[in-house]
């Protein structure tokens, strides 16, 4: 089984700096594997460990993703190879653009039986890319997948909805977006970290992909602002419920909320 796992690399949210005017800076942020994609990688690796075949990790993004530590990080988690589309044209790419690029890169990989994505990206969490990639291929496409079993030439998957779990048969090839509870991501051991630097990595630019149309974002980002931070009042309200309600109402009035 040839599995492609799409991986979004993002600036670490812990490293985001908020400037006094509310704008944010990612200049000092380390780039990491999106947290939702770690489980997708693990699910793909487990399938191939059980069924045989190959796992290809695929990532598209701006120049900072071409980082040797990130590449080793991905490959130490089990994929056999890594394909990256690295291009500053993908800075702030919207979901359609990203899906277009990923789909074309997948097309050029030859026979692919299964494409896995995380449930959403770690930065914007639109949860669209996996669905759009599937639509572009015209393949069976499902999201919220929390379990995948291989049965003969098809998959039996569990789709975790709010109040029920759907059990579905899915013919291959297919595109699935998996939830974080599908499995626990492995922690790379030293031996796997050392092996990672010997695995093949292919890097391409958007222009190398031979896309039929120009990659052009359809969404314009005007600005990103952090929400204003209010100083907490840290008021403890003592007394019986009736007294406390009175006091609370007084405070809320004073703040102009009521």
């Amino acid at each position: 089984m040839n599995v492609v796992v799409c991986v979004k690399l993002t600036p670490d949210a812990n490293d985001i700096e908020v400037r006094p005017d509310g704008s944010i800076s990612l200049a000092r942020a380390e780039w990491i594997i999106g947290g939702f994609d770690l489980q997708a990688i693990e699910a793909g690796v487990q399938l191939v460990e059980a069924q045989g075949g190959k796992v290809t990790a695929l990532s598209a993004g701006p120049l900072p993703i071409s980082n040797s530590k990130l590449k080793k990080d991905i490959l130490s988690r089990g994929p056999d190879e890594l394909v990256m589309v690295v291009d500053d044209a993908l800075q702030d790419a919207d979901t359609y653009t990203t899906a277009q690029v990923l789909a074309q890169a997948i097309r050029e990989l030859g026979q692919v039986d299964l494409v896995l994505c995380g449930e959403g990206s770690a930065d914007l969490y639109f949860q669209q890319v996996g669905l759009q990639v599937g639509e572009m291929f015209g393949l069976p496409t499902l999201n919220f997948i929390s379990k995948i079993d291989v049965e003969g030439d098809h998959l039996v998957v569990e789709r975790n909805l709010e109040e029920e779990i759907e059990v579905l048969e899915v013919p291959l090839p297919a595109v699935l977006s998996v939830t974080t509870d599908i499995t626990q991501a492995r922690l790379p051991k030293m031996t796997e970290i050392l092996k990672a630097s010997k695995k093949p990595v292919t890097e391409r630019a958007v222009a190398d992909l031979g896309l039929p149309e120009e990659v052009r974002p359809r969404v314009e980002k005007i600005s990103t602002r952090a929400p204003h931070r209010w100083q907490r009042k840290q008021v403890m309200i003592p007394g019986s419920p009736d007294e406390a309600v009175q006091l609370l109402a007084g405070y809320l009035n004073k703040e102009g909320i009521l």
Partner: protein
Amino acid sequence: MDFRLTEEQELLIQSLEELLQREVPDSLMAELDEAKEFPYKPWQALADFGILGLGVPEEFGGTPADIQTMTLVCETLGRHAFPLGIIYALGMITIRDIVQFASDEIKQRVLGGLVSGDPPVALGITEPQAGSDAAALKTSAAFQGDDVVFNGQKMYCTLAGMTRYIMLMTRDQQIEDPYQGISMWLLPTDTPGVRCNKMAKVGWWTIPSYEVYIENACVPKSNLIGQMNNGWPQLMANFEIERLALCAASLGAAEGAYDDAAAYANQRQQFGRSIGSYQAVQHLITDMAVKIENMKNYVYKIAWMMDNDLPVRHEHAMCKLYVAQASFEVIDAAMQVLGGLGYTMEHRVQRLWRDIRLMRIGGGTDEIMYNIAGPQLLKKARK
């Protein structure tokens, strides 16, 4: 001068930190400490993750690793769960002695188990009359055909009562120079005639130490590690790395205490503001951070020197002296920042405070570190 870690080191430590967060919450270490139990489960998690095989040859299930990487592991363990760092450090000397000096048969018998989670081999040197003067040991080895019979008593023999083997040091009293009459043996702890008596200690409750009574304990002669009467230089060959590893774990413990103190200083409110907003607390925090940075630079430099085969004869002693004292000072300051909370049995800082104190005694006392470094420094100055 490049202070950056390699990408492989960064990735390993990132993985290890996540493993410790998943498998070794502080609540577990607190429970084990209270119950005075060896951390079997966390130790097995480290084995399953491949950490116990670092530095062990691949043919015995290990993974090649340089000293800097193992030092970083010790530091990380120390920061999250200090006893694990100590146990790992204690294992380093016996593993390296076995790898360097033991027969293939002993390596086959022992190393695979250590890599897959056996507690480390205990080091049996200290005796009632032989502490800092380790060469004054009296435990004897007498040959009987193909066997050797041991008699003697060991003190402060950490892990002896719960591990499979003791690396036993014996002395041939017929040889006048004690340094030329010491031999190193592998003594299985289930050998008839070996009796371990657990000692009560102020700290290190999860890392038991024992008095070991050895009466006519008989093992095959092939249990000799290295050469007969060459035990002292064999032991000294890896003492430096054990001290470095203990320093790295102590550095980690200081970092852990700092993390707790800094978080508390920001959060604890007194007189209407955080205690960290007062200069008195800021001074404590800053002094702690300076000491941590100094310790880190010292530990990493010694690791780098050892990886580059540079001699560290007095440097390692100076590092051990400084780190043992500075890590205690940092943890003591953390307790001061935490106030009453830090002195309660609820908080991990009290565990670190009790545990770190031994670092000024174990692995060579402060005073012995002066004795090692002082003459070497003056000799160097005479040139």
